[in-house]
């Protein structure tokens, strides 16, 4: 397993955090449902480049993100369309629209591939943000593993919210029964369920950075945390507010 080393800090980091990050890193390097391991690592690389992309800065300042033309900073092998999707998620996520996702799907970036891409981008970004928050350098990306994607679709799928199909609230059954507990299917939990492993990936990280789905039912304080739920939600609310996230 990949080792995340926080020994450069003057204080300890809970051991479950680097363990979960290491597990995710190994998953990142392997073939997924719709992308190869090399493509998945390239998506992670693109998510880091987004933060230094001059075109993203220019577009973020424009009144409409859809009228400006230009090229993203892109030193990897991914197409401009894929890199554009990655960069929007990092730098201008609140202005992503159904029309953009549909246009991408009609031009080679399927909704299934988009959902897996979202899962990679947000999970790598979140792990990177933890490092930045503590003043640590970012972890080197893993070496891709060989193999082909599975191209496996979950069932049943519905189109009752958002830009992509998802499993229905009562659809976490069979081999996907672990995705959420009955009655815990908040929209954000279902959001990436077109690619169940994308849900598993972020839940695994959320469980150590914030709370597990089960832990979220505790509104006082988790035994394994030094901050209580109010402190957590103040942080969550402030981050969401700065990002202008209505959800």
């Amino acid at each position: 397993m990949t080792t995340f080393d926080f020994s450069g800090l003057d204080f300890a980091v809970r051991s479950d955090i680097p363990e979960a990050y290491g597990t995710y890193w190994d998953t990142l390097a392997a073939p997924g449902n719709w992308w190869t391991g090399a493509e998945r690592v390239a998506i992670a690389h693109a998510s880091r480049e987004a933060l230094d992309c001059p075109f993203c800065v220019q577009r973020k300042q424009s009144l409409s993100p859809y009228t400006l033309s230009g090229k993203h900073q892109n030193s990897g092998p991914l197409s401009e369309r894929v890199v554009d999707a990655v960069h929007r998620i990092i730098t201008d996520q609140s202005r992503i629209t159904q029309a953009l996702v549909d246009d991408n799907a009609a031009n080679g970036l399927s909704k299934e591939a988009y959902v897996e891409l979202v899962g990679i981008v947000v999970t790598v970004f979140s792990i990177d943000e933890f490092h930045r928050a503590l003043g640590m350098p970012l972890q080197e990306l893993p070496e891709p593993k060989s193999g082909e994607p599975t191209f496996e679709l979950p069932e049943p799928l519905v189109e009752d919210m958002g830009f992509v199909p998802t499993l229905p609230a009562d659809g976490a059954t069979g081999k996907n029964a672990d995705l959420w507990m009955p009655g815990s299917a908040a929209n954000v939990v279902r959001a990436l369920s077109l690619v169940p492993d994308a849900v598993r990936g972020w839940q695994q990280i959320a469980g150590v950075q914030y709370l597990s789905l089960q832990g979220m039912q505790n509104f006082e304080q988790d035994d394994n945390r030094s901050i209580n739920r109010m402190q957590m939600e103040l942080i969550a609310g402030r981050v969401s507010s700065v990002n202008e996230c209505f959800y």
Partner: protein
Amino acid sequence: MMLRVSATTTDTEIALQGVVGDKASAATGIAYGAELMHFAESIALRDEKVMAESRKALLGAAGPAVLVDAAGVAANFQRMVRIADSIGIPFDYMDSPTVQAIQQELGLKGFASARHSMTSDGD
């Protein structure tokens, strides 16, 4: 909404305006609230200099365990906002009067991503 629920559960008086950056409100009823709010804000704004200052302030006030857990929560929500917006999901509890009151108090309906949750008449 979760902040309101956790405050109600623990019978604590809080001021929600801490979520939109008011330092005094953040400190109301929440230990290290001002430092936590500033640290969270600096991470979301991605200002390295301010982040270093706020990290030092939180570490000094609350200690390393709180700093690590706060960094985890902030990093987590840097992800969650991007899942919600990149998939365009609506908020689950739009009909709740408590939710509507919070949205009104904090001016949340002015956010671009509110469109995923609104009907054509703005509700």
